[in-house]
């Protein structure tokens, strides 16, 4: 792989050797009629090799924009205002935002594959699945058809599909869950190191969703890739994530180990989300909504962007925006009162 595009600045340091992705202070705006829509604001995070990070947050929190920025698939109206995205493989470093068109094409899919929410729209309706596997391989410089089809067979079996049947089908002949599994298989075709899943199970039925979750868990055990998992559904994060990052109004407001985040949330927004979701197991629990609605991304409130909805907001929250600070080992929160015992759920 390293021969594909020679590294410009190879500087592997022991500290970041097993970090696949580093995002530093990334900000993305959309140019809208009413002004700049601040979709992503100063986002920084690391994704370790083989790690699963789940991005949670409501619609409009910037999760999908962040995912699209990582593979530079943003729509025209978007502007990357600032920030850096560093991708590493085998000790080499690549500045994703500086990749030239040819390199970018190789980076996508071969290094980083993204599976979108709507599996039907992501597949070409007039090509059989086998042809789509071949196209993908060809577009990325692998021309050995024999090898590709062999690999396609293996991958389809891995996602519990009948390869013979599926390869000769058109997308419309497959169910939603099958199409989603085809996309997973296809995303793994070129053995990428990083996979981004955007709401991978949202439109699926419970039993299909369960099958997909189990397949993802199994794939993670059998193959080595990092997973960035975007979902508004907290239960998927609870199932699959090693770490969870909560996004609100374009910024990461909390990030930590999955157990830490669920059992000792530090940001009032994360607490609110957890308290708003019922569980099936166990007795009836008291639930509460978060009052108010998400902010207008064109006219963000001053100070902490969550303060208009926060029950604990003080004068300071209305004026100064808190930054992420460490509240426990590996657990960061952007709240003036996080980790001080000042906020209790």
């Amino acid at each position, binding site marked *: 792989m390293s021969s594909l595009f020679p590294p410009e600045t190879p500087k592997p340091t022991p500290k970041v050797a097993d970090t696949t992705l580093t995002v530093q202070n990334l900000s993305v705006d959309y140019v809208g009629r009413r002004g700049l829509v601040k979709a992503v604001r100063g986002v920084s995070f690391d994704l370790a090799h083989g790690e699963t990070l789940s991005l949670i947050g*409501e*619609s409009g929190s910037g999760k999908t924009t962040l995912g699209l920025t990582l593979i530079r698939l943003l729509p025209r109206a978007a502007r990357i205002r600032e920030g850096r995205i560093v991708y590493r493989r085998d000790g080499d470093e690549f500045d994703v935002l500086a990749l030239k068109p040819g390199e970018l094409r190789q980076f996508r899919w071969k290094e980083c594959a993204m599976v979108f929410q709507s599996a039907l729209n992501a597949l070409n309706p007039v090509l059989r699945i086998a042809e789509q596997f071949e196209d993908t391989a060809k577009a990325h410089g692998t021309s050995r058809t024999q090898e590709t089809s062999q690999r396609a067979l293996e991958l389809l079996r891995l996602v*519990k599909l009948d390869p013979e049947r599926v390869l000769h089908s058109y997308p419309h002949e497959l*169910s939603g*869950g099958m199409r989603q599994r085809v996309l997973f298989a296809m995303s793994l075709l070129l053995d990428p190191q990083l996979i981004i899943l955007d709401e991978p199970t949202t439109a699926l*039925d*419970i*039993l*299909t*969703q*369960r*099958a997909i*979750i189990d397949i993802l868990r199994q794939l993670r055990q059998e193959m080595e890739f990092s997973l960035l998992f975007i979902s*508004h*559904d*907290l*239960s*998927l*994060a*609870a*199932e699959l994530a090693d770490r969870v990052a909560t996004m609100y109004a374009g910024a990461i407001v909390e990030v930590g180990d*999955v*157990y830490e985040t*669920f059992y000792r949330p530090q940001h009032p927004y994360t607490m*609110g*989300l*957890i308290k*708003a*979701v*019922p*569980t*099936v*197991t*166990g*007795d*009836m629990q008291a*639930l*509460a*909504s*978060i*009052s108010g*609605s*998400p902010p207008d991304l064109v006219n963000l409130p001053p100070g902490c962007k969550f303060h208009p909805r926060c029950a604990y907001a003080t004068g300071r929250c209305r004026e100064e925006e808190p930054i992420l600070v460490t509240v426990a080992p590996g657990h960061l929160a952007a709240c003036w009162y996080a980790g001080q015992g000042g906020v209790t759920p």
Partner: protein
Amino acid sequence: MSSLISLQHVSRTFRQANRIVKAVDNVSLDINEGEIVCLVGESGCGKTTTGKMIAGLLRPTGGEVLFEGKDIWAMGRDFKRYRQAVQIIHQDPYASLNPVHQVSRILSAPLLRHGLVANQAAVPGRLRELLGIVDMTPPEDFLDKYPHQLSGGQRQRVSVARALTVHPRFIVADEAVSMVDVSIRVSLLNMLTRLKNELGVTFLFITHDLALAKYFAWQGRIAVMYLGRLIEVALTPRLVNDPLHPYSKALLSAVPEADPRITRTKQRVQLRSLDVPSLLNLPPGCNFHPRCPLFEPGVCDKVVPELVDMGDGRYVACHVIAK
């Protein structure tokens, strides 16, 4: 005991090209006044079709829908009274509210149409009252708004207020909170619960989300549908904690939970097949038999199981469990 709504062997088929799709097959269910019943199931199981038949929007192709004991399609004059008594709230408020009408017009139309206000002058007062009931205060902020100027949650509140204009006794809520963001879903559910407690409205709550069903219908019953048939009906705490039908068990065990310890240690029911049969080509006997872990050849693939009273308030349609 007479039920407010009673489904008696209700079926509904649709014609697709030259084939017949059986969306709802021989469903019987009684719903009493003041009760909350949740109809749960996966997409295509017929839960929305059932809701529409209860609301009188679709006519059954077999069986009867009774309102206070009378067949709604043979009511004559009383049909109008039934229509006002039973309202439906749809999943997508953006599609069910007229985009070019302001909230005031959306809500006043049914009031005027059905003569539910003494005169035009009484309309504003009633509108304020309705918006107050759905927690849209102060009402003045919302009366002049168009649907696109409201958030998803607010739009759904307007849909509820519109349903309330005609003083319904029964509301069919079809995935009414599914399109709303997680953080405000609960406030909508709590508002609906309040309507039940304060106005005595009876609810049929249709959802694919078992956790929501549990939360909303804890005091009521859950009815589980699979491929057009009711397969289990029980009091909510019973059904959630101790389901009987293998499909209910599979569903409950498959749901991911927003709690890492619970969700990662749950015992899962393994199905024999992942594929959902097509409604155009349903398996013989029990619909669930090709996937069922309890499948017994010769019975399950031959005879359609009836919903059997298990004697403890639970009803289940399974040859193996009911033995």
